[in-house]
């Protein structure tokens, strides 16, 4: 199992290590006081990237090799907006061509050293071919007329929060947008489509309810060992696909709730996935003040409620999109919450240990291989 966990928070980046007694503790703090929106360690070259949101001064990206010193590299930036052109979302609200947030950061395939994908608010997907030294906006996706039908979900503007590079073919990339559905390229980004069946948007009028481009997938994950298996924690439910995302099936009767933001899938057993439920829509707190993780082992037919070691009264922790992670063994899990609680499980969620209840609000947890 992984012995290292990176935790990106509203007030810094924390490195946690597991000792021989299986106890986790913070071994290093970076960017103390700064807002770290995303972190990634690229297993291909052992580089770590930290996305910072400095508020007044904008979003930045830093990187380091191994345990070396951090250095600022380029952050994805939008090209000059054409003179006189007004960009709007589905509600007619203006979208400025400015990077608001670095929301997703993923490595390219094993055959693409140095290649990174970055999803941003207000909806642009970027690619770097040089470890973040430079970035290019993926214009075919940005320029698709369908983007005018996207809208903000949780934020004022749309954003790409999930990027899945198919381990069988690095040219196949799926990007999920809140709110703008799931977009797929099969040629490395030259052409994109948003075409699938079965996903339902309860917040849209009947004519748009099954429109792929109107779906609010809160988080999309792909099983590394069975890449045709995809899971989505959606705004109004949990959806599962076994055919690469062409058809989706909604999981029914998920207790205590099918609302949430995060999902993790076992790296080899595609039928096993984890979720962190909350009350929808506006409340967004654990049902009954009991913080639990739900798990399916049968492809979403049934769900177990996992609570051993988790607070079962007056818990108001919410777990955002990038704050539920399973390691490469499929055994170890980590969960981080908006109220700064961090738990790990060594046994697929059967039991949990609290590492801290007083970290800053957590934006992302990542095991380091």
């Amino acid at each position, binding site marked *: 199992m992984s012995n290292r966990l990176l935790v990106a928070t509203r007030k810094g980046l924390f490195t946690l290590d597991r000792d021989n007694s299986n106890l986790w503790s913070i071994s290093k703090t970076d960017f103390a006081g700064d807002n770290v929106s995303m972190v990634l360690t690229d297993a291909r070259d052992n580089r770590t990237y930290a996305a910072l949101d400095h*508020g*007044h*001064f*904008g979003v*930045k990206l830093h990187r380091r090799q191994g345990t070396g010193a951090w250095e600022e590299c380029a952050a994805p*930036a939008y*090209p*000059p907006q054409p003179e006189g052109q007004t960009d709007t979302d589905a509600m007619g609200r203006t979208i*400025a*061509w400015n990077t608001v947030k670095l929301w997703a950061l993923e490595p390219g395939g094993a055959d693409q050293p140095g290649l990174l994908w970055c999803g941003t608010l207000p909806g642009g997907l970027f690619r770097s071919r040089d470890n973040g030294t430079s970035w290019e906006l993926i214009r075919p996706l940005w320029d698709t007329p369908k983007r005018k039908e996207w809208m903000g979900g949780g934020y004022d503007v749309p954003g790409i929060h999930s990027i899945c590079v198919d381990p069988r073919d690095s040219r196949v990339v799926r990007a999920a947008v809140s709110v703008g559905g799931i977009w797929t390229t099969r040629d490395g980004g030259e052409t994109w489509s948003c075409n699938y069946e079965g996903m339902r948007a309860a917040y849209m009028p009947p004519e748009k309810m099954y429109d792929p481009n109107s779906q609010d997938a809160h988080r999309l994950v792909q099983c590394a060992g069975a890449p045709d298996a995809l899971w989505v924690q959606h705004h109004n439910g949990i959806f599962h696909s076994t055919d690469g995302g062409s058809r989706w099936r909604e999981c029914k009767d998920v207790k205590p709730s099918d609302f949430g933001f995060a999902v993790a899938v076992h790296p080899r057993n595609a039928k096993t996935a984890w979720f962190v439920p909350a009350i929808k829509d506006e409340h967004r707190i654990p049902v009954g003040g009991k913080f639990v993780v739900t798990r399916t082992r049968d492809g979403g037919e049934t769900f177990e409620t996992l609570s051993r070691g988790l607070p079962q009264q007056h818990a108001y922790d919410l777990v955002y999109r990038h704050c539920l992670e399973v390691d490469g063994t499929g055994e170890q899990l980590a969960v981080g919450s908006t109220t700064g609680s961090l738990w790990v499980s060594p046994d697929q969620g059967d039991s949990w240990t609290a590492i801290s209840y007083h970290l800053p609000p957590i934006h992302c947890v990542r095991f380091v291989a």
Partner: protein
Amino acid sequence: MARVVFTPNLQRHVACPATDAPGRTVREVLDAVFAGNPQARGYVLDDQAALRRHMAIFVDGAPLRDRARLSDTVTDDSQIYVMQALSGG
């Protein structure tokens, strides 16, 4: 030449000493400053080269009027202060 002074809070991220630079507008002056300090540019200006939403510029004590184009005129004796706006928290 106009004198450009940056908020001390920016110095933690990128060194921005007070700099004298030529130009007839705020844009021209800042372009001259950032030509010698390109990393600082993205901390003050957004992707469209407008003043960042939560930044403020004062020219001889008056707030910048044209936040998009930075066309406010300056003189050789102007003092340009690049500050954080309180709107940012």
